[in-house]
């Protein structure tokens, strides 16, 4: 598969805008999950602005592909995509996690157009995604389901129950993307709860496994298309990422798992956005 320079450049632009929208949601002093939202931003941009079949005019279009944030705390990145696509007014971004807003602290399908399920209690989103995939198959639909998982989340036993079940049912319409950023809420996964042989584990559980650099847009597109083409069972895309990606003060740091930036950091963050915009047009 080859991708035009223009497509790749456009998706990079979108990824920058997604990160900008994330910044807009959490101005200085407002706590938010910056780290895990920005680590998966490139994959999310590829999914929402290229790979997935969506209908922004009808969020409940039966023929749509579904994306479920199993790592629900990183929902800021999903809000950033949905706002960009016009699922709701951009003014909602400033009201995230407020009583008046429609953007809850964790994904809520009843409050927010474009959100497909209720997630936030970690470990459940892959199972829910499998259920949707099985339902779509009963309906003979060719829609696909994408589950976004955190690497820290993989400590939840239910993930592996779902992994086994998806293999048993050969759910080839299900793709899991693991945001392998190596940092969880309080420290690195290596320190908190190291899970050895992750690639081999997913393979042993019966999945088609693709390992990529989750910030390389071409690798992301190739992996998503390979998952689509694979018909023997579910695909796991293990995406090596950097927590807090693009914002140097936050990169690789557990501190920014869920934190507020100060004024100085916020200014730097916007400078990073401007720099990236210049680079992508160069």
């Amino acid at each position, binding site marked *: 598969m080859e991708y035009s320079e223009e497509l790749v450049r456009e998706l990079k632009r979108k990824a920058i805008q997604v990160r900008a929208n994330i910044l807009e949601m959490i101005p200085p002093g407002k706590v938010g999950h910056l780290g895990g939202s920005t680590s998966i931003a490139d994959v999310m941009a590829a999914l929402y602005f290229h790979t997935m079949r969506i209908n922004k005019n009808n969020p409940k279009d039966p023929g749509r592909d579904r994306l479920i944030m199993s790592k629900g705390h990183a929902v800021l990145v999903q809000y950033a995509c949905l706002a960009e696509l016009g699922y709701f007014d951009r003014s909602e971004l400033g009201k995230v996690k407020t009583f008046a807003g429609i953007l809850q602290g964790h994904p809520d399908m*009843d409050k927010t157009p474009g959100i497909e399920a209720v997630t936030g209690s970690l470990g*459940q989103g892959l*199972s829910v995604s*499998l*259920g949707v995939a099985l*339902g779509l198959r009963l309906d003979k639909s060719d829609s696909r389901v994408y589950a976004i998982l955190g690497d820290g989340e993989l400590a939840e036993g*239910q993930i592996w129950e779902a992994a086994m079940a998806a293999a048993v049912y050969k759910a080839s319409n299900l793709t899991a993307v693991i945001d392998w950023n190596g940092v969880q809420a309080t420290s690195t996964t290596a320190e908190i709860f190291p899970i050895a042989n992750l690639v081999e584990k997913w393979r042993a559980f019966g999945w088609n496994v693709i390992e990529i650099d989750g910030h390389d847009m071409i690798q992301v597109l190739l992996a998503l298309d390979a998952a689509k083409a694979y018909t023997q069972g579910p695909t796991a895309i293990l995406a090596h990422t950097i927590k807090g990606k693009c914002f140097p003060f936050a990169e690789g740091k557990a501190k920014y798992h869920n934190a507020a930036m100060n004024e100085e950091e916020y200014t730097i963050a916007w400078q990073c956005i401007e720099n990236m915009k210049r680079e992508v047009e160069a």
Partner: protein
Amino acid sequence: MRTSDSLRKTYGETLVELGEKNTDIVMLEADLGNSTMSSLFGNVYPERYFQMGIAEQNMASVAAGLSLTGKIPFINSFAVFASGRAYDQIRSSITIANLNVKICGSSAGLSDFGDGKTHQSIDDIALMQVLPHMTVLSPCDAVETEQMVKAMVETKGPMYIRINRNDLPVVTDPNSEYHIGKMTRVVEGSDVVVFATGIMVQQSMQAAKLLLEEGISVRVVNVSTIKPLDTEALLGFCEGVKAVVTAEEHSIIGGLGSTVAGALSKTRLPLDLIGVDDRYGTSAENYTILLKHYGLESEDVASRIRAILTV
């Protein structure tokens, strides 16, 4: 359609019957299908029967996903596992989102007498009724089970049904109209009212018979929908009586009794809660031994009624 007095067989047969026309019905099982009787559905509609292995948490969340595509999933296990093992999955994946998932807690209460305390559910009503959006159903016999399962399919929203493992005598009228949320008077009386659920309906009816010979008139009401509780009907059935008794095969903490107590708090009527005290089950060679041990036989109900009337 019902071929026996078995609640669980009736549950399975009714879903087979409904599944013919309603192709949205799907069943999920965690390797107890021959006990829950979900296997009956699997035999007829294998493509709509999902064997999920011994993994109840995944089963509950997968059911949530299936309902998101318009299916009507029934998940099946023993009541202890269906409600307790997958509690957070029911809470987060199913009830917060108000999804149309039906949960069958089979072998409920003490009815799995041989398997002992790990397999006997004295806390499932408490766990399920505290969840917003959840409906909690507790049939007293096979006739009511059939009516209830039909209503579950027709009514949207998350629901929990607790089903006794053992055959029970039919005490409800097959020609009666059934609605979720409706409580039904099964014995008329005027001195005391017993609000009973599940197997305790027939125990209370027998107690009423015993007491009638002593000149005590007992009204028995079958509360087969524990949530939402019809408070208006509840207060109506309390009119004219001297005391109120509740009877359930469940802990008296968090079950029918404590909910009724809350609803009646302003009536100042004397109230007694019959159920399992704050303790777990135990193995026995038959069901009757357990009902006796936990004070759930008709004689126990009768003596508690005598006692509350002499206060």
